[in-house]
């Protein structure tokens, strides 16, 4: 007989929510990820002239549809960053790395990705980084393995 007063404790059990979702992409996301597979980064231009990277199907401020693709640079500027000393499962790198928002050359918005730097002392906002492509690309945000600090010239 279960008696809470006796400190018997309630039952607990492990449970794993596990599933592989199949996501259809639509024209805009599909085109962006196709570009990544082919080693190209494309943004989308809003009527106000902003170039959004990554591109969305709609203007984030007005909801209006967007279709005007523009190729942008493969290097850009870190707008903010955070150093994760203990990466978690599924994250882009297994060794310590920086998360960063990166505004690519020619873009007006920033993309979230990882920066492979030797340590946090090598990171600062405003630094330039460049894309490191994954060798085997399938059409996904993970086709960008990460970014890396641009060699100082």
């Amino acid at each position, binding site marked *: 007989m279960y008696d809470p007063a006796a400190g018997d404790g309630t039952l607990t059990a492990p449970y794993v929510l596990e599933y592989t979702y199949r996501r259809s992409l639509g024209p805009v996301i599909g085109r962006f990820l196709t570009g990544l597979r082919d080693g190209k980064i494309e943004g989308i231009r809003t009527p106000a002239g902003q170039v959004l990277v990554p591109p969305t199907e709609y203007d984030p401020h007005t909801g209006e549809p967007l279709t005007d693709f523009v190729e942008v640079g493969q290097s850009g500027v870190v707008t903010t960053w955070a150093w994760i000393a203990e990466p978690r499962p599924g*994250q882009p790198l297994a060794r310590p790395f920086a998360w960063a928002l990166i505004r690519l050359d020619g873009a007006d918005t920033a993309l979230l990705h990882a920066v492979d730097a030797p340590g946090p002392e090598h990171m600062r906002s405003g630094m330039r980084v460049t894309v490191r492509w994954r060798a085997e690309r399938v059409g996904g945000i993970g086709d960008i393995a990460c970014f890396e600090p641009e060699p100082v010239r």
Partner: protein
Amino acid sequence: MRDVAIVSFAQTPSLRRERDKDEVEMLAPLLGEVIERSGIPRKEIGFTVSGSSDYLTGRPFSFVIALDAVGAWPPIEESHVEMDGAFALHEAWVRLQHGDIDVALVYAFGKSSLGSLRDVLVTQLDPYYTAPLWPDAISLAALQARALLDAGLCTEREMAQIAARNRAKARQNPFAQLRGDFDVEALLASPYLVSPLRKHDCPPISDGAAAVVLAAGDRARKAVSRPAWIRGIDHRIEPHSLGVRDLCRSPSTTLAARKAGVLGASVDVAELHAPFSHQEVILRNALDLGPNVDINPSGGALAAHPMMVAGLLRLGEAASRILDGRAKRAVAHATSGPCLQQNLVCLMEGDP
């Protein structure tokens, strides 16, 4: 608008892990308590609405099971938002505006401890560009904190002071989870969790529940001596992508505050739903709070942070200070989404 007030508030203690009670066992006594405290018979409740998320339990329809705690018989008029309970309260406030019912019950529950919360919250993110990288919730908050530090809008010391102050205030709050006196120098000497955030900059993982009874007009006046009148309540949302937003500001909080009549109002107390220390700075600026406002007398979200509940807790804590006469006018804030994406602001006031 019809006068609507919070007439009672109750909460469970926030615990790192509520091992013994399931959600229904947490809620049933709590709902009994909040109804009894309102002095309004259960049968007078015309509308019931709750806030929760299936993803905290990893199972669909968790709110359906929780309904058992309400005693929904004979059948009741009831609704649920997959949002923080603060947004459920907004729905109840709207419903009471119709004038055909006078009393509403609002509750929220969340056991954040069941899964790994910072990973569970990844499923909130854009499923194509962001979630596949599994950026955990603390990392995203750290990006925001860095932006704030870079802009010179706060310092790591101020962040530690905010953490220490909230947890010191929480000593007065028997329901809080993290409370006590913390030495700012010692906090600053501790290692980063995800730099620039240290452990103290982050909210605890909490299990808990909260409930509020709302009543309109004379029914509220009859129920309690000093109802916490809702003078304005509004919520607004921002774009989802962090790379599109100015992370140093919270324009949606400012807009909601303007709509709720908070801007320019003098308030005694502000309960801000800032799970991370630096977010208190953003919210203070967004709400334009003066130096004399008592911020988070409860200890805020840094002292207790049951997901889906913490926003409703802010409304309840602010209201309770009006109900018992400690405050004349209070502002409460609730947030949802990564890095303060969506924000609700409520202005409450006691009768003079």
